[in-house]
């Protein structure tokens, strides 16, 4: 087993061990923190497929995170008010069942990613960053003015949604759900990176004209990557809304896009477990330094600056060095 795989295993076991320990010591708040790490890491795993593998610097992933959040919020709000979402052409009721909510969140964010990607991917570099940012902000302002679903105040859900066979109101059980989804996404992401699609996508990031010369379409590769990426981040959004039992336009704002990107950069762009490490460090800093000063993000900024200047591979890069070629 290579060093990076060993490190990854340690990271994921630690993320599992901390809430279990907290359960034993009766510290529910720590479990909530760990759940937040798992969810935000999941959002980062999504972004990492576009950013790390595809080289697509999207500053609009809050759009998918927020769409996932609103998918949960809208479905659950209708369920708790016993109002159908729509009754034509078929009756569509709200729902408080997580699997259905996830499905809607994934499909909605994938559809949004398809549209946003198809338009944004005609540009590259700074223009791509700006146009994804613009789409994210469009949705943000739309949500603010969408009074049917809370507008600026957002939507509160009274009871956490249900998962068949589990009691999601118990923090450790909800953590388990999020952790399992994170592991699934990591596994999927690893397989994707090693697949033919992953090889071609990664090549398109390194040398576009080569990919064209062997007869593959960089645009199509990137669009597919963007849709997969958006869908995973959307799933994370649905979980995040469920964690807080609240969804608001903040989830769609460009700060959120920036935060998801920070997880990826902090941990290591393109490193499979980069977002997990990044999200964990981010939440730890927020919790530890946030207690000292509300300006804790100054320290985060310094850390990020150090990472970008001295360790291009993020924390994992600084610890383990350059990634070796996949075998």
């Amino acid at each position, binding site marked *: 087993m290579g060093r990076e795989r060993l490190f990854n295993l340690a990271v994921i076991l630690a993320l599992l061990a901390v809430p279990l320990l907290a359960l034993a010591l009766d510290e529910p708040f720590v479990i909530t923190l760990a759940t937040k790490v798992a969810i935000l890491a999941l959002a980062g795993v999504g972004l990492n497929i576009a950013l790390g593998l595809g080289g697509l610097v999207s500053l609009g992933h809050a759009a998918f995170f927020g769409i996932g959040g609103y998918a949960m919020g809208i479905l659950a709000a209708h369920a708790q008010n016993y109002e159908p979402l729509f009754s034509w052409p078929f009756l569509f009721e709200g729902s408080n069942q997580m699997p259905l909510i996830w499905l809607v969140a994934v499909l909605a964010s994938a559809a949004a990613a398809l549209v946003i990607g198809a338009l944004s991917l005609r540009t590259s570099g700074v223009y791509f960053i700006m146009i994804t940012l613009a789409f994210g902000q469009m949705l943000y302002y739309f949500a603010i003015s969408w009074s049917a679903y809370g507008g600026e105040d957002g939507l509160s859900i009274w009871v956490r949604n249900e998962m068949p066979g589990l009691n999601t109101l118990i923090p450790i059980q909800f953590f388990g759900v999020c952790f399992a989804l994170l592991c699934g996404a990591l596994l999927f992401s690893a397989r994707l990176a090693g697949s033919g699609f992953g090889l071609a996508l990664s090549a398109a990031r390194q040398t576009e004209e080569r990919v064209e010369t*062997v007869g593959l379409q960089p645009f199509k590769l990137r669009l597919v990557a963007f849709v997969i990426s958006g869908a995973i981040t959307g799933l994370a959004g649905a979980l995040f809304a469920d964690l807080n039992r609240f969804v608001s336009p903040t989830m769609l704002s460009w700060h959120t896009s920036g935060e998801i990107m920070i997880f990826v950069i902090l941990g290591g762009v393109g490193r499979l477990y980069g977002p997990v490490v990044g999200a964990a460090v981010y939440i730890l800093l927020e919790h530890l330094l946030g207690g000292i000063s509300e300006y804790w993000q100054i320290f985060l900024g310094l850390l990020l600056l150090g990472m970008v200047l001295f360790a291009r591979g993020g924390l994992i890069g600084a610890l383990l060095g350059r990634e070796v070629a996949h075998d």
Partner: protein
Amino acid sequence: MTDTSLSPPMQPVLRVEHLSKSFGALKASNDVSLDLYPGEIHALIGPNGAGKSTLIKQISGGLQPDMGRIELLGHDVTALDTVARARMGLGRTFQISSLAMEFSVLQNAVLGALGACGKSLGFFRNVMKDKALLEVAEEALSRVGLLQAAQQRTADLSHGQRRQLEVAVALTLKPRLFLMDEPMAGLGASGSKELTGFLDQLRYEAPILLVEHDMDAVFALADRISVLVYGAVIATGTADEIRNHPEVRRAYLGEEDET
């Protein structure tokens, strides 16, 4: 023209007709016509700035000509993009290596095999364990003598090895014709000689349109040579015809041959 080898009327694999491309007042391609027949190496030479790269780009599909047409295997491909032309069997190598530097040598070769195989890419199966692709990739690497370096990171290769890998990736495509942009550039004398020997055989698999600065290689290899000056083809002929062509001597070979 070497009519002896072309006695039965053969279809050209590539036919470029009256191609023109201007950038402002600069005529980068000025009514260029040339063709490439099966089994031949057609060399394209010309001084720096003669418009060789512009011509190559138009043939490979990266640049649209203002006028004229390009025919590949009998089909008009003028309006098609790089990807479509690659799929039709155009195997291009680059003057400046455009390899995926983070990949291993083998991964670069597998990428070529993957693109050429025409199957869907797959999202789950490990592509580096695909036997059919590996076979194609490894065969191409061994043909250019790069199999020992298969696991090396491409960024760590020497310049000469990168040139070899360029050719190997083109081989994995199993193209119907090669479009080689200065494959000898930066190779040492021995490397250049080795590659010359290799291309000499390769022409029987697929003809080669060869852009090259190395005159020894060009005169040793080419069945026909076209000379490009200021965007226009001033002469096309065999090595001897080109050597003795007065206009070519004046425009291009003059300084070198004065001794």
